[in-house]
């Protein structure tokens, strides 16, 4: 299914890859771009999940994981889309600017349940650090999820489920 076809309010279950990344990692990516350096990862066609997992219990794939507040990272949204990101996943309402950016790039924003991190961790089938390991819980991870619950919060036409 193409992201352009999704409508605000629609509930889906997603299976596939997610790139886990939050505040500090995006700040670093921006610094790489400003210095004209090569990025440590390719974001073309990827979905970014704003999250920072808890520590991994022994023998498990990943620790508790869930969305963090997306609005904090609204200023980096355009950068992500420019790098080829097709959708973002997080929690909560986003700014008017973020909605406009989604419309302009024809991209979507999903929310996934917050405070449900133990349950969501069960839907993660594999996980590996992609970059910035020194950031600990804020490193960039690639995870493979199955039946991950999402609601379209901003669609590619800029319709949103939140009151503006």
């Amino acid at each position: 299914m193409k992201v352009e076809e999704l409508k605000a309010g629609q509930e889906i279950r997603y299976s596939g890859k997610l790139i886990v990344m939050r505040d500090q990692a995006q700040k670093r990516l921006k610094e790489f771009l400003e210095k004209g350096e090569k990025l440590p990862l390719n974001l073309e066609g990827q979905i970014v999940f704003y999250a920072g997992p808890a520590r991994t219990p022994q023998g498990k794939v990943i620790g508790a994981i869930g969305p963090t507040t997306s609005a904090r990272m609204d200023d980096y949204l355009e950068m992500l889309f420019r790098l080829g990101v097709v959708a973002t996943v997080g929690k909560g309402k986003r700014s008017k600017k973020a909605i406009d950016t989604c419309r302009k790039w024809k991209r979507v924003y999903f929310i996934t349940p917050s405070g449900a991190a133990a349950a969501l961790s069960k839907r993660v089938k594999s996980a590996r650090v992609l970059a910035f390991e020194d950031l600990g819980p804020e490193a960039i991870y690639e995870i493979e999820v199955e039946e991950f619950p999402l609601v379209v919060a901003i669609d590619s036409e800029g319709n949103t489920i939140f009151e503006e």
Partner: protein
Amino acid sequence: MIRAHTVLEKVKKAIVEANVKINEEIREIIEEYEGPFSDIIKENYRISKEENLPLCQDTGMVEFFVFLGHKTVLEEPIEQTLNKAVEEVYREYPFRFSVVSDPLFDRINTETNTPAVVHLFQVEGNKLEIRFLVKGGGSENLSVLRMMNPTSGIDRIKEFVVEHIKEHGAKACPPLHVGIGIGGTADKAVLLSKLALTRDFKERNEDPRYAELERELENELNLLGIGFQGLGKGKTVYSVHIEHFPTHIATLPVAISVDCYLCRKGKVIVEG
């Protein structure tokens, strides 16, 4: 004398419980919720309990409110014991280290989840009462203080609270517990708003005028219809609590703090 070890063990147990076991007051409300993601939210606390996994990946910065009886003698400074408890719990359980050493320049993770924030109040008697909040960053970012005109009155306060929650409530994992601090100085008002979050939902302010304001705010905030996860279904706030304090003739500080839908908190009492 109260042994540090006694306090340590009790506090550790309470912090683990707050992180992995759903608060009973909340479980009842969630059981009734049938909107989007309700299946996952209900599944979550069953898995947390069975596997000792945290309910939320953001296992917070722990904030303590210590009421120390004036006849109580402690083996070591309470802040030391509490930091030790946090460090041990967060190392022993698969919780997230979410505290950085310097807020502005380095932001290097302390990898202990310490320091905790500790507020100490001396009270009468020989009892040590420790209340705490496991405060996630998303809800903490909604904290706000406004220095109002002393003539502002109830309507302006209500307007401030309603506008703030309307604009930002969906970012902090609603339904929310809303704490309001009125009076004192700027810092005192913020502290009061946090103390308000240590109350049980059904408690009401002892002053009937503030109790009425709590009820009115609760109703008005629920009319916003933000709902669970900001998706419009279910409650927007669980409860509103106000703590007040005398203030200067020229001031009316009003602070708002919120707790996320999991409301992770605890209380430990040790007799001296």
